[in-house]
Structure formats: C-alpha cells, structure tokens
C-alpha cells in the first residue's frame, strides 16, 4: 500500500484535469460534482489503506519514502519529486482527504446552480492535490510546491466571484500576504541548506536527511535565523500576526472554500510545517519563544475582534485565526503532538461550523431571494430563531460550538486543554509559561463567548429576518446535512483518541493514542529540547486537575456572559457599545490593522513606485538620456549655421582651406 502513495495526489489531479478541461462541456452538475467528490474520496480510501498498513507496522517501521522522478538536480542540489509517509503525514492526509471528501459532497448541494460549477470543483480538486503534495513532500521543495499551490487555489477560490471587486481584492491580498510568507520560507530554506552544506557538507533539503544531520546544527545562531524565516512563512500561510489580515477577507469565497481551505486544511500548513521540522525549530529557544508569543498574541487578538463582528463567516474566520494561534502556542511551547491534535480536532469542528454557517446562509439566501429582499444573508442581525426551521444544522452547529468552547467530553476540550496545560508546564520558557497560559485561558474565554454569541444570535431569540422571507426558511437538503452530521459526530468524539493521561488513568490507563502515534516523529525534537529545558517543569497532578477545572470554568464564564447578553438581556450589548464607543469601534474595525498596513506598507510602496517611475525613471534616467541627445542636438543646430546652403560659401571655405593648407606646407 505504501508504494501506492502517489495515487493520493493523483486522483484529485485527474479530477482537476477532467473538470477543468471538460467540465464546461459536461454541464451536468451531478457528474461534475461526482467526479470531483469521487476523486478525493479515492484518495481518502488510499489514505485509509495506508493508515491501516502503518498501524500494522511497528513504530520503528513507519517511515517510508517514495521517489517518483528527479525534479531539479543542479550540482550538489538535488530535489526529487518524492513523497514521505510517516505518522505525521498520515494524520494530515487523513484529515485532508476525509474532511475534503465531506466538503466536496457538501459543495454539490451548496454550489447548485452556480455559474462555473465545474470551475469550482476543478479548483477544489486542484487544491486537494496541492495540499496533499504539501503534506506528503519528502523535501522542502515539494512541500513548497504544495505550499504555493494551495496559495494559488486559495487565490482562485477566493476570487471565485471575480466580478465582485471585494473578491478580487481579497484574493490578491491573500496571495500577496502568502507570498510574503513564502519569501520567508525560501530564505529559511536557503539558510538551512547553505549552512548544513557549507559547514557540515550535508547538501540536502530532504526532511529525513536533515533530521539525521540535525545534531550538527547549533543551538540558536544560524538556526534561529533559519527557523524565524520559516516561521514568517508559517505566519503567512496560517494567518498569524502580523500576516493574518487576509484570512477574514478570504471569506469572500464560497462557504465550502472557507471550510476546507480557510479553516480545516490550508491554514494549518504552517503548523504542519513546524511539526515537520520540529527537530530544527526546537534547536532555537528564541524561535520557540517567538512562536509561542506570536501564537498566544494572535489567539487573544483575533478573539477580541471576533466578539464584535456581525458577519457570521467573519466571526468564524477570526475564530480560526484565534484557534491557529492556539496551535502555534502549542508548537512554540514544544507541545508538538498537542498542536497537531488540535489541528485535527479543529479541522472537524471548524469545518462543521463553517459548513453549518454555509447551510444557514444557503437557507437565508434562498428565503431572502424569494422574498425579494436585499438584506445581507450573512449578517447575524438578520437572523435569529433559526433552530426551529433548521434543526439538523442547529444541532451539529451547537455540538461543534461546544467542542470549540472547550466543554469537557467534546473534542475541543481535550486538545485545547492539552495545549494550555503544556503551555503551562513545558519547561522551555521559564516564567513566561504562566503568562502564556493566562493569555491562552483568556482567549479561550473569549472563544466561548463569541461562539455562543454566534449561536444565540443565529439560532435563538426572536427571528429578525424579513417577515416575508420567514416562510421560505427550511432545512438544507441531505447532501448538505450529511457532511454536517458526520463532522458534528467527529467534533464530538474525535477527541477520544487523544485522552489526556490524567483522564486516561481514571478509566483504567487508556493511553494517549494520538501522542503515542506521533511520538516517533517528535522524539528527536523532545530530546533536543531537554538540552536547554529549565528545571523539569511543573508536573503536578493536582495542579493539572486544577488547571483543567479552571479552563472549564473559564469556558462556562464565557458562555454565561454570552447567554446574559444575547438571550436574557438583549439590551446589554447596545448599552455596552454606547458606554465604550471608542473601544467598540476599534474592535469592530479590527483594531484598524488593515488601515495601519495600508498606511505603513501599501501606500508608501505605491507612492515610492510612482516616484521611481515618474521621478526617477522618466525625469532622471530618461532626462539624462534625452538630455545628452538634446545637448548634441543643440550643438548640431549651432554648427548648422555654418552650412548655409549657398554654393558660394562652400567655395569660399574650400578655397580658403586649400590656401591655408598649401600655405602651411610651403612656408613652414
């Protein structure tokens, strides 16, 4: 089965080619959607086969590389088109193909009747292929193909409604911000490759070879530089401070896209990349600290913005940014397995949430359309009380919300709690650990608050929808609700494969399967970590219970606040905004980050470009060039007056010249 790993990206590629080239002729939505969905489902089946085989193998036997063909060979630089299978990549392909299949299925219903239906599925398949290349690549360059490929697909899919200017802008913004990250990725790659080659004579970009040579790398120094560069790449792709602003804008794309790309898979690429190169990252304590701090900061920062948004998808987008912050917090504190675990559970519940919101939007859109209303179908202020008309959507949405809020028993609890605990207890950042935990906890509180705010505003209370449209509201078709149910189920139970040791012990020593599974991947990193770990950390059972309790309480506090503000006492939000208008405006306008970036980068760049063009290129360079020409021309026209055009003058000059020359030779 391992040998067939190339099939995994191949299926979506075939799907892409068929839909891309023939889709316009096929026209039948069922066939197009079927091809797209089957392609990724085929990959899912292969992935399952690989997972089963990998489980059956011993932990020491789980790394497998498959070289397809040599790609770029130049001198000592070798990059093959090759795939790497290990527990980490298997987790990722399972998530990508599994969630991907469901979202493809969902899209058949959601995109029904859209112009360019085939285009959508082609892009979606292309995205899956790129993402699979990203996670399967056995060297940084194949990863980079996927890395840029998903960026491309993200661009294409955000710009799917290209006739809307906002969609075009958002697409461009996403791609450019990702490019900033790619720049970091490339420089990091160069640094690592050059240093290893120059100092250790290991010329490679292959992950496994780097892993073998990782002991040659120093702690800090050049590794800090390289890993920080890589981290810049990760912030671009995973929407962390300072490159996060593209993700909320990316909601311009169709909702399944938001679910698949901007929640479940692509944005987690940064987390995956850090996990893939954990053995390098951990060698730089400074980078780890930066990652943790940036992760925590993003988590709280995005969460605050999420509390004031009214667009249902934007709330979810900021929630995604915030959750990704949690993952980076985990990575930065050395809790790699926990980070990947949260990645997986997040994929379940966030995909479910997005798809659920999509279902709501779908219904709203339909209803408003039939009522000939021009209200915004995504604005929560136009919703309310939807739980009666859309029960399935409501239940799955609620389950996922509970999961993301961190209520015990649901998947989000296990993963988030693991992260918070490790942030607190891992021995890398000394006193900072408690601060990180604190920030994380507050962010979790905000999470619970804005998610339940979302649920309450959408599904509870009185309906604020246009009365004419109300009768048109109804539950979405099966093709939409089935993925919701599956994902809701996973969001509920997905966490049980990674029970915390503490909880597992209660039930007769159930191990943390997930951590065990990933242990071979992160073993080496943990070893390097011990090199500079401080005083063993705080492994105290009572403390762990305490913190777990604290995080549950925090979540409940958030939910309670939301309940008070949006169900019990609905004037409260209004009062709040009128009490702190400046704060509300700042939060509502996303702390004016976009404006700040425009002011700091975009406008100066444009002005500078304009200056270079009009000021330097045209005035200086061309000025010099044309100036030289003008000087020559000026002299020529001055000398032109000697050429009178009269034969006489020529004859005269000729005679005088002849006389002068002869005279010179005769009388000298």
């Amino acid at each position, binding site marked *: 089965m391992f040998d067939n790993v190339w099939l995994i990206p191949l299926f979506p590629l075939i799907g892409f080619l068929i839909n891309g080239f023939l889709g316009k002729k096929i026209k039948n939505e069922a066939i197009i959607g079927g091809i797209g969905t089957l392609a990724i489902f085929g990959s899912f089946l292969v992935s399952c086969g690989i997972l089963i085989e990998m489980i059956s193998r011993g932990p020491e036997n789980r790394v497998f590389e498959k070289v397809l063909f040599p790609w770029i060979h130049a001198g000592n630089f070798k990059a093959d088109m090759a795939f790497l299978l290990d527990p980490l990549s298997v987790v990722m392909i399972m998530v990508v193909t599994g969630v991907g299949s469901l979202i493809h299925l969902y899209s058949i219903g959601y995109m029904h009747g859209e112009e360019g239906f085939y285009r959508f599925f082609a892009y979606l398949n292309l995205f899956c292929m790129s993402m699979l290349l990203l996670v399967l690549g056995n060297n940084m360059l194949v990863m980079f193909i996927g890395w840029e490929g998903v960026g491309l697909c993200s661009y294409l899919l955000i710009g799917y409604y290209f006739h809307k200017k906002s969609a075009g802008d958002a697409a461009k913004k996403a791609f450019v911000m990702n490019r900033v990250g790619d720049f970091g990725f490339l420089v990091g790659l160069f640094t690592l490759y050059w240093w290893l080659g120059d100092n250790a004579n290991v010329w490679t970009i292959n992950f496994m070879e780097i892993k073998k040579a990782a002991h040659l790398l120093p702690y800090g120094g050049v590794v800090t530089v390289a890993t920080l560069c890589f981290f810049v790449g990760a912030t671009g792709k995973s929407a962390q401070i300072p490159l996060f602003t593209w993700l909320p804008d990316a909601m311009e794309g169709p909702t399944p896209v938001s679910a698949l790309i901007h929640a479940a898979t692509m944005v987690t690429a940064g987390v995956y990349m850090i996990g893939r190169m954990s053995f390098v990252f951990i060698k730089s304590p400074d980078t780890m600290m930066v990652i943790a701090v940036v992760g925590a900061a993003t988590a709280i920062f995005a969460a605050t913005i999420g509390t004031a948004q009214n667009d249902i998808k934007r709330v979810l987008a900021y929630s995604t940014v915030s959750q990704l912050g949690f993952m980076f917090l985990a990575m930065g504190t050395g809790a790699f397995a926990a980070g990947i675990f949260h990645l997986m559970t997040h994929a379940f519940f966030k995909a479910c949430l997005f798809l659920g919101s999509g279902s709501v939007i779908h219904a709203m859109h339909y209803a408003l359309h039939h009522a000939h209303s021009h209200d915004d179908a995504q604005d929560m202020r136009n919703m309310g009380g939807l739980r009666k008309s859309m029960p399935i959507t409501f239940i799955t949405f609620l389950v996922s919300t509970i999961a993301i809020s961190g209520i015990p028993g649901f998947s989000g609890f296990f993963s988030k709690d693991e992260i918070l605990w490790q942030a607190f207890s891992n021995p890398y950042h000394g006193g900072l650990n408690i601060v990180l935990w604190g920030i994380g906890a507050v962010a979790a509180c905000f999470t619970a608050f804005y998610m339940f705010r979302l649920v309450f505003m959408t599904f509870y209370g009185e309906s604020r929808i246009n009365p004419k449209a109300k009768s048109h509201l109804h539950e979405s078709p099966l093709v939409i609700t089935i993925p919701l149910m599956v994902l809701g189920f996973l969001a509920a139970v997905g966490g049980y494969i990674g029970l915390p040791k503490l909880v597992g012990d209660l039930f007769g020593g159930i191990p943390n399967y997930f951590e065990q599974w990933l242990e071979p991947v992160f073993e080496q990193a943990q070893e390097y970590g011990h090199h500079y770990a401080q005083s063993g950390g705080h492994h105290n059972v009572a403390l762990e219970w305490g913190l777990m309790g604290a995080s549950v309480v925090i979540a409940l506090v958030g939910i309670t606040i939301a309940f008070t503000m949006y169900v019990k006492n609905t004037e409260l939000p209004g009062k709040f905004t009128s009490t702190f208008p400046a704060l509300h405006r700042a939060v509502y306008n996303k702390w004016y980050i976009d404006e700040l970036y425009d002011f700091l980068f975009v406008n100066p760049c444009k002005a500078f470009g304009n200056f270079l063009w009009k000021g330097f290129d045209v005035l200086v360079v061309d000025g010099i060039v044309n100036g030289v020409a003008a000087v020559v021309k000026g002299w020529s026209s001055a000398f*032109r007056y000697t*050429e*009178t*055009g*009269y*034969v*006489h003058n020529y*004859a*005269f000059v000729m*005679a005088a010249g002849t006389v002068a020359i002869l005279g010179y030779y005769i009388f000298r």
Partner: protein
Amino acid sequence: MLSLHHYLILSGILFSIGAMGVLIRRNAIVIFMCVELMLNAVNLTFIAFSRYLGNIDGQIFVFFVMTVAAAEAAVGLALMIAFYKNRESIDVEDINLMKL
C-alpha cells in the same frame, strides 16, 4: 630671355583672378566663365612645362583638360538652362534647395 618663371607667374595671376571671380560673382554663367579662366591658367603651366622640360605629356594633358572643359560646358550650361526654367534666375543665391 624668357624663362619658365614668366609663364608660371602669369598663370598664377590668371588663376587668382579666376578664383576671385568664382568667389565674388553671383551669376552662375560668369562663375562658369571664371572657372574656364582658371582651367586655362593651368593649361598654360602645362604647356610651359612641356616646352621647358621637352616632354610632350604636358600638351597631351592640356588636350584632355580641354575635352573635359567642353563636356563641362555642355552639362553645366544645360543645368543652368534647366535651373533657369524653374527659377527664372541663375543667381547662385537662388540655388538653395538643399538649404534647410
């Protein structure tokens, strides 16, 4: 006794007068005649040298110069007629087509 110098000096004087005529006159035909004058001055030198060096080549050369002068006269005068037809003038100041 007549020497070569006499002839040469005479030739020089004639040549200078011819040159001056070319330079100061504006009538193309007069200029043309001045050129003929200069040619003749040169012819005189040729023949004088031929005589005093006892070499017949100089006279043969004069012969050719005359031929060329004749051809020149034919073409030059034709040009003047053509020009006159166009401009009603043969003043060299009016020959200014090439002037910018």
